[in-house]
């Protein structure tokens, strides 16, 4: 064997990955060739340097988060557990402050309206999404897990719902994540993520697909009562974003999530 013959094999030789016969042949050449011997030494030295870099250290608490995720995926949610998660009383604190009062009055109006017009709810469930959003606003805490850290919120969901949607913080884009809770929309458990834009809260409901369900699209729901619902789906989940935020900004929000959450290529509809 000459230098040209062994050139392509030096790496595997340095790694001790050659078959016995190849190894012997390469060694026969390398032992007598200073250049190739130096190449082998160089490959090994580089390997030691890369190895010395070591692994990236694990982020604080990741083991706990992964364990929570695994625990969550291991258990199937029971319908009864859902309801108990949601606090039902309206606390006094919410009644304080004019903003909260306004929210409350608006919410009651919407709920009353929804209550009175059950026959008209559209097939895509926009009304129900709005009322679930409002229900969230009425609660003491907007979220059961209060954290702006997606990596904490996600395993929490896995434990509560048995599925774990990707959670992204959009603080840099002006939609900080406030937290999450579990809810029940359109007859199934859903993760509800709460984001804020100025004084407006946005609830993002995420639930696994149901067979045969159509792409929700922009329901335009509640155009008259000031709530907008935008829906879309990806390979695994259906999403609804609902808020009293103006429609353009809600679409911008959905687009951000479409770009991050949605990996299947479906984009939220344009306004």
């Amino acid at each position: 064997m000459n230098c040209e013959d062994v050139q392509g094999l030096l790496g595997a030789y340095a790694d001790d990955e050659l078959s016995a016969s190849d190894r012997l042949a390469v060694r026969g050449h390398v032992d007598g060739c200073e250049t190739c011997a130096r190449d082998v030494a160089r490959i090994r030295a580089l390997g030691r340097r890369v190895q010395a870099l070591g692994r990236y250290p694990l982020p604080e608490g990741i083991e706990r988060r992964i364990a929570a995720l695994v625990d969550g995926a291991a258990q199937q949610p029971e319908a009864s557990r859902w309801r108990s998660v949601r606090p039902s009383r309206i606390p006094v604190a919410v009644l304080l402050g004019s903003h909260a009062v306004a929210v409350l009055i608006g919410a009651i109006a919407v709920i009353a309206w929804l209550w009175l017009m059950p026959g008209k709810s559209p097939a895509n469930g926009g009304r129900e999404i709005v009322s679930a959003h409002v229900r969230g606003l009425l609660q003491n805490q907007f979220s059961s897990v209060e954290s702006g850290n997606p990596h904490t919120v996600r395993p929490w969901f896995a434990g509560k719902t048995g599925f774990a949607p990707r959670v992204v913080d959009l603080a840099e884009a002006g939609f900080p994540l406030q937290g999450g809770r579990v809810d029940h929309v359109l007859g199934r458990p859903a993760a509800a993520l709460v984001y804020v834009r100025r004084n407006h809260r946005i609830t993002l409901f995420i639930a696994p697909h149901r067979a045969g369900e159509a792409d929700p699209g922009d329901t335009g729901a509640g155009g008259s009562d000031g709530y907008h619902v935008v829906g879309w789906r990806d390979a695994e989940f259906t999403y609804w974003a609902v808020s009293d935020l103006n429609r353009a900004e809600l679409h911008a929000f959905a687009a951000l999530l479409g770009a991050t959450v949605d990996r299947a290529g479906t984009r939220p509809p344009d306004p």
Partner: protein
Amino acid sequence: MRRRAEFERLILPHLPAAYNLARWLTGNPQDAEDAVQDAYLRACRGFDGFAGSDGARWILAIVRNTCFTMLRKGRMWRNVVRLETARGHAPDAIEAQPDSAPGPEDQLHAKREGERLHAAIAALPDGLREVLILREVEGFSYAQIAAIVDVPIGTVMSRLSRARKRLQEALVQDDEQGRRHEL
């Protein structure tokens, strides 16, 4: 999941390797943890289909596929911060290196060396970077790497030698530049 205990024994312990690979492939800690969480979720859902004994190989294959899916489907918007990594400024790996208490100058030199090497690895194409990390940091055999990356062993061999070649060239270039700076 019925085989929870087995999952804990065979798959969970590989978290450090899984995170390290994801961190190198995604280029930032947020996406890396996202990918690892995703991968572990998939892994425990699909664990009933895992019959082998090489848990490391299995979970790392899932991790790298998750990372590449993430990268392919468009980098997340927050990846604008990746520029930093691209410039070789990725202090979290370097600074975590244990000091064996050499003098301050040695330390500085070692740190600079480490940073240069780090930057050179970060600059490798994804496909070369992953085989290099799997080989040199994780110490996998060619056969294991071939299984993780899902390519023939010959491809692993050639990617690895290309990775090493590029790395060596980059480091030599760096050395020359460094010398010119000192003059």
